[in-house]
């Protein structure tokens, strides 16, 4: 290959062409100078490196790092303390919840003693006995009033029969409800009112007949 000055730059970019460039430089001062400069830049460059002693730099960095480590540990402990408090609070909450549930389950029907709308077992037994006796006495009255009631065909007698049918129907309804909710004092009172109403109606029929 014939090497010309214009090929020098290409030779500097392509190391394989450098031997040809060096051969050419033997007879070309300009190219020899450029080749020397190219090579000398690499030789001189490491001398540009700036070096100086900094005996305080690492101690400063170390001090800063130690302070950061300490701060991190403090934060870590803070979080651990925070989690410990949360754990204690959660434990207390669970303990209180368990105690409340246990107390509620073991408590002997507290609502019946505190709420007048609910009856105790003993009271219910007394109510049921009274109702049975009351019903028996009303049935006795009904048997006494029935002949007079069915015999009369005046409007008052017809209205009274309808009233008794309505009362009997209502008594059946309330008794059916009471059967599913025996401790409900209000229902027992409603039932008693219906019985009383029926009793009064039967008494009226007997009084009218006299």
């Amino acid at each position, binding site marked *: 290959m014939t090497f010309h000055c214009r090929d020098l*730059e290409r030779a*500097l*970019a392509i190391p394989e062409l450098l031997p040809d460039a060096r051969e050419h430089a033997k007879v070309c001062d300009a190219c020899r*100078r*450029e080749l020397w*400069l*190219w090579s*000398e*830049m*690499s030789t*001189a*460059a*490491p*001398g*540009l*490196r*700036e*070096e*100086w002693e*900094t005996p305080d*730099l*690492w101690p*400063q*960095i*170390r001090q*800063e*790092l*130690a302070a*950061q*480590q300490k701060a991190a540990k403090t934060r870590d402990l803070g979080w651990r303390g925070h989690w410990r408090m949360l754990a204690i609070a959660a434990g207390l909450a669970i303990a209180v919840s368990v105690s409340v549930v246990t107390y509620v389950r073991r408590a002997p029907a507290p609502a019946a003693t505190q709420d007048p709308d609910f009856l105790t077992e003993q009271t219910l037994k007394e109510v049921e006995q009274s109702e049975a006796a009351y019903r028996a006495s009303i049935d006795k009255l009904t048997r006494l009033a029935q002949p007079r009631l069915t015999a009369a065909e005046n409007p008052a007698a017809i209205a009274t029969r309808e009233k008794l049918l309505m009362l009997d129907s209502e008594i059946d309804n309330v008794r059916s409800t009471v059967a599913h909710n025996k401790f409900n004092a209000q229902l027992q009172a409603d039932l008693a009112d219906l019985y009383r109403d029926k009793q009064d109606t039967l008494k009226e029929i007997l009084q009218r007949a006299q």
Partner: protein
Amino acid sequence: MPLAMAAGRLSARSDADLIQASQRGDLSAFEEIYAAHAGRMKSIAFHLLADRADAEDAVQEAFLKIYRATGAIQYDTVLAPWIYRILLNCCYDTGRKRQRQAESPLPAEPPAIPSNVPLQVAIRSALARIHPQFRMVFWLFEVEGFRHSEVAAILEIPEGTSKKWLFEAKRDLKRLLTEGRA
């Protein structure tokens, strides 16, 4: 010259060992990293900031960031490119903060290169006049002794680009030096 040797590291511990030890809070391991790289880091920082105090600040900031970041890096990370990337970022931050032109230690329009100065002085002056990317590659490869693969890793560019930019840097420098000495 391999990076570890160029850095003058005397430690037998590998990068992975040093990372793991640093992650455990072992400051002696971190000191080994400092000893291996601080000298070259100061030189690079000075090249970018043109002030020793600024360079030391940048190196200190870089090591604090490196230490904080060791907790998040993989054990198989090659330390050097990562460390020097952090340093360059710190230098740019410092440069911005102090309102200096980070990659131009000399004034915006550097004076022409006198013909009677030693070559090193002439190169230093000429470096200020070439493209910052070319200058950075020249500095890392020719001055600090990094290989093209390492320059590429530090600057996050392809290795071929590192070679090309080095050629461009030297061509521009040769032109400037030739003009100055003509």
